[in-house]
């Protein structure tokens, strides 16, 4: 189970995020919806253990991650969280395969080519393994980014604005991709977006105001 209690984050005197009580059951999926500036990216960074909240606690699968710090937190993130960023940020000088291997390497997990092949095949980009990100279409790059997020079998899959600047059809495909992969790997999925079109795909939505 993923849960936050009395969570608040401030930059200086400006409060950018406040979530009193919110939780997502393990293996479920949830949407965080809000306009830009509502703190939804901040929430995503807090859930991923990239940012320490000013107040409150975050529990993820029986671990209070807001109390972890330093390399313990880094290691926890590498093994338990997969993140698909809005701008994807694939490493341009590495091949698709090496991008996935990088995820294994940085999480200090064994470098497992079979797992990489399985993941790429599940996402339909097995034939792109030797390519570099710059040679792929936008849709293929997104698939590779999802593949990199799930290759370590994370318990929590986070996606930041996966549908922005996509047309309706492509947006629906992107959401299907994420929900499909979450279901396939049994991960809890949290999608953070300002895009209201996505709402109908999710039973559970946390709306953040400005």
């Amino acid at each position, binding site marked *: 189970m993923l849960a936050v209690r009395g969570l608040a984050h401030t930059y200086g005197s400006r409060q950018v995020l406040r979530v009193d009580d919110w939780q997502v059951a393990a293996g479920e999926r949830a949407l965080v919806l809000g306009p830009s500036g509502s703190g939804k990216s*901040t929430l995503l960074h807090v859930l991923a253990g990239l940012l320490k909240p000013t107040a409150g606690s975050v529990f993820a699968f029986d671990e209070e991650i807001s109390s972890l710090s330093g390399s313990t937190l880094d*290691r926890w993130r590498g093994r338990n969280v997969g993140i698909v960023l809005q701008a994807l*940020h694939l490493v341009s000088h590495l091949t698709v395969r090496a991008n996935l291997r990088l995820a294994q390497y940085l*999480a200090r997990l064994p470098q497992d080519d079979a797992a990489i092949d399985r993941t790429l095949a599940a996402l339909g980009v097995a034939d792109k393994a030797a390519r570099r990100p710059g040679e792929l279409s936008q849709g293929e790059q997104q698939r590779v980014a999802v593949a990199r997020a799930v290759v370590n079998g994370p318990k929590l899959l986070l996606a930041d604005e996966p549908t922005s600047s996509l047309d309706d059809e492509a947006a629906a495909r992107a959401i299907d991709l994420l929900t499909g992969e979450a279901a396939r790997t049994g991960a809890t999925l949290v999608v953070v977006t300002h895009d209201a079109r996505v709402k109908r795909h999710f039973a559970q939505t946390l709306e953040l105001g400005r």
Partner: protein
Amino acid sequence: MNLASLSASYLRARPLQTGLSLLLLALGVGTIVMLLLAVTQLEDRMGRDARGIDLVVGAKGSPMQLILAGIYHLDAPTGNIPLASVAQLEKNRMVKRVIPLALGDGWRGFRIVGAPRSYLELYGARIQGEFYSRPLQAVLGAEVAQRTGAGVGTTFKGAHGIGNEGGDEHDMPYTVVGVLARTGTVIDRLVLTSIESVWHVHEAAHEPADEADRKALEEDREVTVLLVQYASPLAAASLPRAINATSALQAASPALETARLFRIVGAGAEAMRAFAVVLVLAAALSVFVALYTALEQRRYELAVMRVLGASPGRLFGLLVAEGAVLAAAGSLLGVALGHALTSALGAWLEQAQQPTVTGLAFLPEELAVAALAVLVGIVAAFIPAWRAYRTDVSRTLASG
């Protein structure tokens, strides 16, 4: 995948910056390695050439010139001295052995040296064929034989004058009776014959008219330099001063004069070394600039690595590894370049019939130079690595 392969992948993706850093480092390390090899080998070689010779005695003039002409056969001799001085010196109790040499002629740029057999023994030269036993027989040094293609049975005419200027040819031909095995010393570049042969060739020009004339000619016989071995180390204190003060001769100590020569040559080598150090520092600066200026462009790449579970320490390690990989590759190239340059220098010296150097020898000091260059590359990466360590992932991702 590991830090080194990840670094190498990144560096390959930026060929221009990487190439510039590699070039600067290779030039710096290459110059240092070449100087190291050349100076060490030349010193070693000059040491071997002078081994067993405590003092050189010849006509008055510059002591360094006397050493260069008498031991290394590089400079023109200071002049000739009467043959009688050999016997005079041999009588001195402080002298163990005197080896007289008669210089003055050359053949195809190689010097013809009139010398007793003890001169060949001084360098432990093994011979193929025989030693000269009669006038106008000659023995060739290994390099002379190799470069002229001459061997046992070849006849040739010496020319007056040393070196390539090519004076008048003498009429009396020499016959080669032996060829020396390579010794790595100065006699590889010499044509050796008996002192009597040298006299003979020169006296032939003015045929003695009668017995009295012949006597006069024989009394006028001269040699060029005397190589002296001391009977005891104590001789060094008094013998040179005694010779210089009391006779028309000059005595020069090889140890003192070569030390003086290396102080002069060493100043040039020192300047080149300083220049090479500047090159290595410029390379370090280019490593620093390449890594530092790329940080802005790479901030998402570095943030993503944190997202994937890398600790700040690992980003620090990654940047340091990039500096180290760059420096290691540059140093390796530099060592290879240093050996190539030394080989080129060796080929050029050989062409000029000078004592040559080889690029095929390795020195332990090269490892120290390479290790030092790698260290410099690592240190140059510290500030960029520190910036990478401090990456604020959340803020970076929020900005893009």
